């Protein structure tokens, strides 16, 4: 193979984090002056790979050749200076400094004073057709303007390769068009772009080549012309749905909850129904608004407008306690930060929500406390040496079971599970599926959010797709194909 026009070559790169294999034998070849798309589901390993390239993480093994040089343990600043820049989704700018100061951050001495900084910054911004005043504070800029500043910063290092991580997520349609024009110009100048995005439309419009990553493996790299949208989705979700799920229950009865409207800054006119004994799946990308919907229902976030009927009765939910009283339970997305008190015992974590229910005249009934803990440890088979074991010493699955146990003790009519199986081993996953099934069969209603499409499709009776703060479709996972559903979720 002719290697003269290869700017970046990644060969057999592996990376593991404690308990997770993030990348397995990843190989990518990026050609000079192309726009190279990288797609994959959340957690597929895209970010890990980019962070290895930019020096944030170190690879466990494999070789990386950038611009003819073999890259060993690099640091972010070394990698930028060698001509590889990365622009993160949430940007990496100092809000309290001016545009010019940000572009040349940390290089004031070599720039010979502020006047030169602003002069050079002006030239860079002009070269990409941006009219931002270099004396303006970054905090006063729009997302699109911040992106221009980031691109100028990358160009100020004479970057040969610019990685853009989800660059379109905070742009309006017009701003996105401008970005595309700019990327086109950069390509003409010989700058290579790696464009990471969930949005397949953008990939098809912009990229020359695309690499699909799934489960830490590079599935395929192909010229965009040789791929159809459906093929790409198939490669992204890939996994065959095997017998890793119990048979879904069919216990849906009459409507228990009617969400008439939810409006927040992010969510627009969310309306849906939930039936008794139903498992309702929410499918959407991270950041689409799935978590925001359920947090609003539970009262964890404030909503501009929230109209919910439970059992035909209007409920007012302003905080999680209101949610609990209305018969809603939430297993939060991040069990360590939002679910558990890690240094506390299994018992303390399990009884947390029952605290006042097992108290008389304000005093906690110690024997009931013990009873609850032992009951849930037994019924969920939480693997802990004793109820007094600290939860931080347990595995992820057993930690999750502690929160499940907490809710089963309250027995809410509606239990919302936000990523219930994230980071949990296969065996425990199956136990959690069985538990969900049991809840539904006993007349409880479940809303399940998961980034693992096969899981939601296999467990739910009905699926709602959520895209950019709206419900974009309703599907029956038993008859509609995964393709159709994913398509609606991507938007």
């Amino acid at each position, binding site marked *: 193979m002719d290697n003269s026009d290869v700017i970046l070559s990644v060969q057999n790169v592996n990376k593991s984090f404690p308990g997770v294999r993030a990348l397995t034998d990843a190989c990518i070849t990026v050609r000079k002056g192309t726009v190279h798309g990288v797609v994959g589901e959340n957690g597929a390993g895209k970010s890990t790979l980019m962070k290895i390239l930019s020096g944030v993480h170190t690879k466990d093994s494999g070789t990386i050749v950038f611009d003819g040089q073999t890259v060993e343990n690099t640091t972010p600043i070394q990698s930028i200076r060698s001509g590889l820049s990365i622009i993160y989704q949430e940007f990496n700018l100092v809000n309290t400094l001016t545009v010019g100061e940000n572009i040349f951050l940390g290089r004031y001495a070599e720039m010979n004073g502020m006047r030169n900084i602003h002069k050079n910054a002006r030239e860079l911004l002009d070269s990409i057709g941006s009219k931002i005043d270099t004396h303006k504070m970054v905090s006063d800029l729009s997302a699109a303007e911040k992106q221009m500043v980031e691109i100028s910063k990358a160009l100020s290092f004479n970057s040969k390769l610019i990685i853009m991580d989800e660059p379109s997520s905070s742009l309006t349609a017009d701003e996105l068009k401008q970005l595309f024009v700019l990327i086109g110009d950069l390509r003409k100048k010989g700058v290579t772009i790696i464009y990471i995005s969930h949005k397949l439309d953008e990939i098809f419009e912009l990229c020359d080549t695309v690499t699909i990553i799934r489960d830490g493996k590079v599935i395929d790299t192909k010229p965009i012309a040789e791929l159809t949208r459906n093929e790409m989705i198939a490669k992204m979700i890939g996994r065959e749905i095997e017998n890793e799920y119990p048979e879904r229950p069919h216990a849906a009865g009459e409507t228990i909850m009617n969400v008439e409207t939810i409006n927040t800054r992010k969510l627009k006119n969310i309306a849906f129904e939930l039936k008794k004994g139903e498992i309702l799946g929410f499918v959407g990308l991270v950041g689409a608004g799935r978590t925001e919907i359920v947090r609003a229902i*539970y009262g*964890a976030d404030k909503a501009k407008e929230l109209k919910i009927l439970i059992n035909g009765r209007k409920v007012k939910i302003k*905080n*999680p*306690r209101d949610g*609990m009283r209305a018969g809603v339970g*939430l297993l*939060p997305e991040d069990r360590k*930060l*939002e*679910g*558990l*008190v*890690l*240094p*506390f015992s299994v018992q*303390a974590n399990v009884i*947390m*929500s029952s*605290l*006042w229910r097992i*108290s008389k005249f*304000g*005093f*906690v009934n*110690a024997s009931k406390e013990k009873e609850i803990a032992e009951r849930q440890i037994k019924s969920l088979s939480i693997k802990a040496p004793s109820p007094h074991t*600290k939860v*931080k*010493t347990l595995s992820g699955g057993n930690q999750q079971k502690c929160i499940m146990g*907490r809710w089963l003790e309250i027995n809410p009519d509606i239990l919302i599970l936000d990523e219930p199986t994230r980071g949990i081993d296969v065996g425990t996953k199956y136990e959690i599926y069985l538990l969900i099934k049991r809840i539904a069969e006993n007349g409880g209603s479940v809303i399940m959010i998961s980034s693992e499409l096969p899981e939601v499709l296999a467990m739910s009776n009905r699926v709602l797709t959520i895209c950019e703060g709206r419900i974009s479709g309703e599907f029956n996972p038993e008859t509609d194909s995964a393709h159709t559903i994913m398509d609606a979720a991507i938007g």
Partner: protein
Amino acid sequence: MTKQPRMGRQAAVDFLMEYLVLFVIVALVIVTAIVEPRFLSAQNFTNLMRQFGPLSFVALGMTFIIVGGFIDLSVPGMISIVAMVTLSLVDVIGELPAMFAGLVLGAALGFVNGTTLMLAGANTQAKALFITFGMSQIYRSLALHLTGGFPMNWGTLFEHPMPVTRALSSGMWGPLSISFWVFLFFLLVLYIFQSKTALGRAITYTGGNLTAAELGGIPTKRVVVFIYTLCGFMVAVGAIVLFSRVSVTVPTVGTFFERDAIMAVVVGGTSLTGGRGNVLRTVMGVSLVILMSNCMNLLGVQTHAQEVVRGAILVLAIWLDHRRHARG
């Protein structure tokens, strides 16, 4: 097999770290008793018991704030204003009603602290640090303003005989001073409150993980307002015991009480990160702080050098707390 002794050593180290303050107290007593036999005299014991007073009440209140994951620097201001207001009221409404009013005022100031924090959306210790620091300035300035900056001497100022204040000042009941009995009463009540009641537990959950507690249905905002109110009340008790001790009360009487109280709580082994600790630990911490200054006084250590030692011990205690956390 080879792991066993290492595990044993680890356990011993853990035990030592956990109850380090007890060992330090014992060591301090032994060393001082040998070097300076006056330490063990009955007079010094009475002296120690008296010193135990004001700080211990403030530290008991501060324990709940810190267990709840917050901090209260407004203590000096609260002590000053409660002491001055209570004394000013004695001639107007009588001694006991004045003290009662002082306690209510303390609780009210604490309530204002907690409410201000919650309204300001201050849900971290760092924010609480600055806001309560500001509140302290307000309270202290108010105390100065109310009294015109003049000190008050209850021994000579009032016509009132002040029996309760006298009893708190020097009264004995059995082998212990009356103020010490008062302390034991509050210790018992607060210990039971923390370990047995739902609200007491809720404080621990709030300090352990505010977000998780909130999502788990704990009324964390009310809990925070409550701990500040409780602390304000305990500070008021401390303020009353304090002015009973010093015959002349100046409007800046509360200075450094926040530092000593936080130090006593942390040295006792209650974690500054919240969720871990109790009032019994605070008693150990207060004992150490008071014993230390008593020992240094007896051994003739200069005041400024004493301050250096205090600061060093506070830093050391926080460092040990971090180490405990780091190892889990």
